[in-house]
């Protein structure tokens, strides 16, 4: 682990690149979300600022930057400040091993997938601290729901990833894509796991119909009820980056990452990522929110047995062949 000029330069370049991806993705996805929501409800969505309203999010961001941050008097100030940061940093770091083409990757790790899974768990700690820190009953309810939710979906999520690892024989995200180059995309071998994974990442990123942590109509705004200004938008930055990350992992695991005809690799990768993001928006604006107990029932009684069975069958078939 020698430090050289090149490794320092590479680190700086990585930080700059990921910051750029996170920022541009958030601006674009917020705009896309409002456009998709608008068109699904026979509205136009934002149209005023810039062409097709593209600069609407930039204007919103400037507005949020200039807003006052209000600290509740009974809040636990250090935890109140730390919580949005703890939410954002793990997803930021987890983008490091994600490959956008065979050569475009910040850092190749042979345990890249494990790193992404491990850092994905930290997000919930940020939500819990946010709910606890601001001394508000709605926030605390939202946070405790988020923790109950992570217990319900994380085991099925891992059991959906395991068959893919068995097929590819590696934890490296790049090697998983390379393994799909010779055969078909893993979505065709593992349709059940692919479908379950889609449901699980919707739960993982706290998106409707599983957005219990914020649940506007029940809990005001859930865990971020007391947050305002830029601290509020940090939570959204974290959520949209997490969506981007989960979509990237989904396209790497099941849709062959950067593989595709004619167009260059990174463009295929981005197309697949935004396909998944569009799917998640589609879910949000067409499904009503389910109840908390229904979500827990669904996670423990349906997702978990089916994913376990799918994993056992895959392992059995691979052992026989």
């Amino acid at each position, binding site marked *: *682990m*020698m*430090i*050289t*000029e090149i490794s*320092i330069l590479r680190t700086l370049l990585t930080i700059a690149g990921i910051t750029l991806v996170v920022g541009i993705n958030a601006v674009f996805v917020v705009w896309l979300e409002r456009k998709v929501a608008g068109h699904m409800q026979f509205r136009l969505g934002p149209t005023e600022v810039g062409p097709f309203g593209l600069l609407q999010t930039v204007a919103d961001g400037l507005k949020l930057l200039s807003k006052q941050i209000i600290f509740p008097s009974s809040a*636990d100030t250090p*935890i109140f400040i*730390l919580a949005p940061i703890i939410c954002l940093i793990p997803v930021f770091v987890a983008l490091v091993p994600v490959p956008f083409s065979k050569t475009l990757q910040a850092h190749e*790790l042979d*345990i890249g997938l*494990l*790193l992404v*899974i*491990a*850092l994905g*768990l*930290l997000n*919930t*700690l940020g939500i*819990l*601290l946010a*709910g*606890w*820190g601001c001394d508000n009953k709605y926030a*605390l309810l939202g*946070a*405790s729901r988020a*923790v*109950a939710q*992570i*217990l319900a979906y*994380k*085991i099925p999520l891992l059991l959906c990833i395991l068959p893919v690892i068995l097929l590819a024989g590696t934890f490296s995200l790049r090697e998983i894509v390379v393994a799909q180059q010779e055969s078909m995309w893993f979505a065709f071998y593992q349709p059940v796991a692919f479908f379950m994974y889609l449901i699980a990442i919707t739960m993982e990123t706290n998106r409707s119909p599983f957005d219990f942590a914020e649940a506007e109509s029940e809990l005001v705004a859930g865990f971020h009820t007391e947050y305002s200004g830029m601290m509020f938008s940090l939570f959204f930055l974290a959520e949209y980056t997490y969506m981007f990350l989960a979509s990237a992992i989904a396209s790497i695991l099941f849709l062959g990452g950067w593989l595709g005809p004619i167009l260059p690799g990174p463009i295929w990768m981005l197309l697949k990522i935004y396909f998944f993001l569009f799917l998640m928006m589609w879910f949000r604006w067409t499904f009503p929110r389910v109840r908390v107990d229904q979500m827990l*029932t669904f996670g*423990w*009684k349906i997702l*978990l*047995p089916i994913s*376990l069975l799918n994993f056992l069958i895959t392992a059995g078939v691979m052992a026989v062949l």
Partner: protein
Amino acid sequence: MSFERFALDIYALTFASLLIQIVVGAVMAVMFKKLVHCFLGLVMTMVGVAGLYYFLGSPLLAVMQIMIYVGAVCVAIAFGLSLTHKTGEEGLQAPGPRGIVPPLITLAMLGSVLLGLSKREWVGYPQKIDESPIGTMLLGEYLLPFEVISILLTVAVIGAISVALIKRRR
């Protein structure tokens, strides 16, 4: 060369900040009054230890540390925390005459570790460890314990499913 000096400084600084994070987190976990602050200290220590593993050349252990201790153990503790409304105001009680025993044990352990380490040779940079023998050994030499653990975990998962599926009687 001045650049090597600079690189070594960065290296030492990162290592020192990790050590500070671990010790401060551990002290927070023991001393603070509010449960959530103690919990935060525990998470800090766990993440710091993961960083230490990475520094010592084993990324696999670092990721496993985060996954198991932060992701599983701490989230389970967090679940317990979110079910209680008590913040834990009782805090520490004044130590009695027996309070001298833990510091003595700690000092003795620290002393023996330092004494043991003082005879070793110091290495500037740790090498990245080849982790593949761990997997090979788990599937060869230590196959039986590994299988027993995996059966235990599978039984736990199936048990969770059956507990959830069977209707509870009133």
